[in-house]
């Protein structure tokens, strides 16, 4: 088996890469995420149908 200059890994690479991956994964949530949730919540509140009286319209007519 003849090899033509295969690449060799660098000592310390696993720890360095794992640490960077960890840092990237643990970024705090952005302000925008909370803003989207808030706006969606307020829009849905406004869309909710008006609550009806337990008494029907017909009762009112009586």
């Amino acid at each position, binding site marked *: *088996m*003849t*090899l*033509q200059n*295969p*690449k*060799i*890994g*660098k*000592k*310390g*690479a*696993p*720890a*360095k*890469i*794992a*640490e*960077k*991956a*960890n840092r*990237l*994964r*643990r*970024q*705090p*949530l*952005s302000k*925008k*995420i*909370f*803003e*989207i*949730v*808030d*706006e*969606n*919540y307020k*829009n*849905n509140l406004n869309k909710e149908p008006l609550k009806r009286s337990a008494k029907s319209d017909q009762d009112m007519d009586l």
Partner: protein
Amino acid sequence: MSQLWGYSDLYNLIDQRPNLKLGMMIDTNLLIAATYDSDENYEKTKEFLDLVFENEIPLYCNVNVKAEFLEIHRRIIFTEAIVGFAEVIEIGKLPPTLASKITTLNNRITRIEKKNTEENLNSPKVLRLSEAEIKDFKLEMLRVSNSGGENLWYELCELRVGDKISSLWEETKEGFGLNFIGTRKEDQDNHLKHEPDWNRATALMEKQGLSSADAMIVNMFLASKFDLLITSDNEVAIAILKNGNIPQGCIVPERVKIIIQGM
């Protein structure tokens, strides 16, 4: 039948097998174990690979390893993004279906944390959502949007995923010095005994119940001239033990070796 070794056998194997200096094949799970610090094999794998690099042993893999690596890290990143969201969000502001899923998720996390504390494990268990669970969250998060048309899912993707998966792969490929073998003539001359064919890979899926990606990796290794495959996956190691012939074999973390020997 092939042989099985633990990480601690590497020094002896280097002395006994000069062929080892020409390279070893590496499985996806080992790359995950070495790049994800919550993996139960992280510490041992990191030390083992540093030893491999010190001894200037090149590592080889095929394209299936790349595809699987991207897929598993994608699941890890999305799980942590969703868990991070679940930990801080005011559940009362979420639509009922998403709120219910987040509550269930928080309960699962509490159970896992409680179990980890009770069992005092060296490597605590971590939650990893399945593909179906991630899709469920995606569908519900797509429905949470603002008047500008921006939605929760894409914002979470942009923030937490962005180009992180591809950059993680590039750094791993460079840092670990990964060499690729395929079916080019040059690869066949240098690294393969014969061309890895689909029939053999399919037989591994049927007889061993391997996933297609694992079957392609095992099949490539069995067709290769390399003596050893490094893996932390029980299934992959067992498939090689059952299908390979000496001198080929597997190196696994000691805890995996004990599990396989106890079967």
